[in-house]
């Protein structure tokens, strides 16, 4: 499918943006033709967000030129961008949970005051593009996919010529992704352009007509993703060949290490998810994955496993057969269960403490960093240095604050801290969320190696590709219920997607009931 010739809808020439200490965009060129779905591809920190924020008027380039329909323009703010015909759907939604869909749309649309007319237009647009949406529903009752539709409809109401989508599929089930792609293709067929930001190479190959690849703030390639392989684009994105994680051959699965047996827990938070009769078993040498769309009870399950939330019965969580359900996080760690939480800053690490102190945070008992109640600073420093070296943490030194590390480096540090404690069981949440490909590969390999050494590893993630790559078995959590585990090698994407969407073994399952329980 060749694109029409003529001036590009959007053209960037030599866009440069300097932040203190980092050149976020260095003479970036980009062209988007009318009707084109153009991918902006790059690792975390490659400068994708900075670039699109300049297109949307949130930031302003230090140097370079933005052309719209061939004419140079200055985009002062998002209002000016929308006036030109640029719409944007952000990765993190800006919705008010306590308000209705319609009210949320009205807040984001310039100069609309007639709610009745707006409601009709919302219905029209949502039907026209296959985005079913009830304007009167309250946002808190909607799924993540439905919330994203609000953002898309809100952008489409402005009749944009260019729609910018920032990592839109990171929160969707495979079926929802497929539906989104249909909508995007329909928009492109109407002659609208889409700038599609992602790091998921397979999606880009099936969806996009052109791609611009950024690395370290520079444009390293402009290519046709249909002509490339995922591997060749990954190499361009990362700069080196990424080695896929490898499992040690002949690894054997041993006795059960972590057993969760009929765990039911009410969530302590308002709008939280209650856990219902969770059952799982992770054996020595095995990696079990838990997939699911965010907000389906993952946070509650992780807290119940780590010991931050106590089970009602000690037998509900067992470690090598020993009941630990009523033990707190420190006691469970002493018993051999280590944990990598989803949130790095403020949960897995203390941002305002040094790396050495953060090494001490969870490692003091298993690594014997105490003597008579006093901290053995020499041993703490040695442990922190060991983490930094073994896990390739890029930092000037262990006296640096955790907050000074990039997301990927801090994640390597946290995973390293837990892995080097040689736990019997490691529970990991979102091991590579927001982490660059190089760090992700290192973390995946470290988890597989740990399992190969005989530990049981439980990975809770929303990234299905990640789970398919590293797990032996895979279960899905939906509305606080966990499906039975499938063998990863035998599971199909469709099967997992249906489970993620809530189609469990029990057909009469009612989501409303579980939400009210």
């Amino acid at each position, binding site marked *: 499918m060749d694109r029409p010739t003529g001036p590009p809808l959007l053209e960037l020439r030599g866009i440069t943006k300097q932040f203190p200490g980092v050149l976020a965009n260095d003479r970036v060129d980009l062209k988007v033709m009318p009707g084109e779905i153009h991918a902006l591809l790059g690792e975390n920190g490659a400068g994708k967000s900075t670039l699109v924020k300049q297109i949307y008027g949130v930031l*302003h380039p*230090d140097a370079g030129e933005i052309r719209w329909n061939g004419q140079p323009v200055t985009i002062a703010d998002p209002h000016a961008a929308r006036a030109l015909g640029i719409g944007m759907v952000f990765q993190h939604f800006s919705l008010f949970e306590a308000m209705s869909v319609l009210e949320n749309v009205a807040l984001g649309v310039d100069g609309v005051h007639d709610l009745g007319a707006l409601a009709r237009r919302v219905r029209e647009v949502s039907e026209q593009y296959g985005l079913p949406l009830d304007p009167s529903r309250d946002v808190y009752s909607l799924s993540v996919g439905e919330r994203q539709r609000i953002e898309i409809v809100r952008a489409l109401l402005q009749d944009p010529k260019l729609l910018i989508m920032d990592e839109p599929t990171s929160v969707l089930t495979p079926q929802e992704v497929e539906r989104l792609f249909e909508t995007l293709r329909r928009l492109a067929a109407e002659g609208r352009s889409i700038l599609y930001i992602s790091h998921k190479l397979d999606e880009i190959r099936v969806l996009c007509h052109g791609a611009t690849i950024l690395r370290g703030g520079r444009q390293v390639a402009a290519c046709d993703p249909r002509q490339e392989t995922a591997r060749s684009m990954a190499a361009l994105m990362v700069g080196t060949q990424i080695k896929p994680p490898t499992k040690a051959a002949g690894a054997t699965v041993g006795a059960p290490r972590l057993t969760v047996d009929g765990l039911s827990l009410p969530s302590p938070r308002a709008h939280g998810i209650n856990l219902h009769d969770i059952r799982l078993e992770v054996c020595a040498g095995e990696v079990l994955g838990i997939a699911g769309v965010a907000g389906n009870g993952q946070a509650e399950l992780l807290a119940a496993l780590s010991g931050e939330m106590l089970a009602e019965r000690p037998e509900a969580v067992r470690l090598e057969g020993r009941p630990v359900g009523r033990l707190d*996080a*420190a006691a469970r760690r002493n018993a051999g269960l280590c944990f990598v939480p989803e949130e790095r800053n403020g949960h897995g690490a203390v941002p305002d*403490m040094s790396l050495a102190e953060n090494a001490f945070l969870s490692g003091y008992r298993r690594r014997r960093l105490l003597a008579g109640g006093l901290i053995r600073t020499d041993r703490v420093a040695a442990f922190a240095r060991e983490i930094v070296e073994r896990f390739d943490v890029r930092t000037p030194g262990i006296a640096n604050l955790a907050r000074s590390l990039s997301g990927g480096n801090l994640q390597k540090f946290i995973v390293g801290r837990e892995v080097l404690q040689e736990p019997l069981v490691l529970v990991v949440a979102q091991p590579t969320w927001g982490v660059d490909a190089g760090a992700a590969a290192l973390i995946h390999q470290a988890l597989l190696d740990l399992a190969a050494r005989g530990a049981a590893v439980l990975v809770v993630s929303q990234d299905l590709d990640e789970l398919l790559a590293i797990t032996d078995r895979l279960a899905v959590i939906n509305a606080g219920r966990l499906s039975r585990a499938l063998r990863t090698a035998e599971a199909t994407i469709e099967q997992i997607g249906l489970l993620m969407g809530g189609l469990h073994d029990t057909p009469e399952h009612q989501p409303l009931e579980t939400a009210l329980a």
Partner: protein
Amino acid sequence: MLRVEPRREASPALTWATPVLAVVLTIVTGFFLFLLLGVDPLAALYAMFVSPLASVYGLSELCLKATPLILCATGLAIGFRAGVWNIGAEGQLILGAIFGGGIGLFWSPALGPLALPVMCLFGVLGGMLWAAIPAFLKTRLGVNEILTSLMLTYVAVLVLSTLVYGPWKDPQGYGFPQTQFFTDISPWTEIPLLLPETRLHWGFALTLLIVAGAWLFVTRSLVGFQVRVIGLAPDAAAFAGFSRTRIIWLTMLLSGGLAGLAGLLEVAGPIGQIVPTISPGYGFTAIIVAFLGRLHPLGLVAAGFLMALSFIGGENAQVEASLPQATTGVFQGLLLFWVLACDFLARYRIRLAQPAVGRAVP
């Protein structure tokens, strides 16, 4: 248009320079204040800040006043680091004086040479008891400790009055609301002097020892580490398995105990008996001392001396320069004002708002 924005990072040098700058600005402000009042500013400032330091006796008084301030502030600072806001050190100080002093009044003859150590112990226990009430209410019922600890201070004042106007009043005291002198009951109740011819006693040395211990506790012990993590990142503390309830109890009892010890040292030391007014607000001033000292043990020793100087200098200014009693309060207020202002400017900067168009890079 003016805009306030956070600085990218606060330099450690600036963190320590701001209190010094605040002191300088306080003195400059005081200079102009005295000028406006028609008082010779140099003479007044001399009376406030220099003449108290010009003699050994003056210095010993400074150390004496600094003792309860530093003791209370040391305990409070540890609590503040954990985000436990004990505002009631004044009341805990009074309870320490009542418990320890009660031992001195009634049991010291029986205790013999052990009288003073037991008095100190009960002073600590009295302060702990008073701090245990807000700790219990907070950990069991979620009641805000700021309110409970503050209100208990007024209860403590009334308990003290009830005792010294009633059952504990000295029968030979011509009806004055005060107890017997402890030394009249047992010679073993006296705190030995550190310097002869002054009122400075060994409590000051004990205080410095406690500060050193607190420093070791905060920087090197597991529990001190837990205190810091709970204050900085409560979720990370939960991740590590540190118990918040335990740390609330610990810091409340620690700060209450140290305030109680301060109260006992006051009544057994310079006052010598229990009277209706034991403290000119040491427990409250200690809050300023803790923050002025950046919650750091060494910092709050310096801040303790500074605030002690404001107490003594204020009294001295009344005598030498005929300034009103309010001078002390005004200077303490000025100092706090400037500390907060300098802190704000160290962490944020004020800029003229930028126009919307970006600048070109050369």
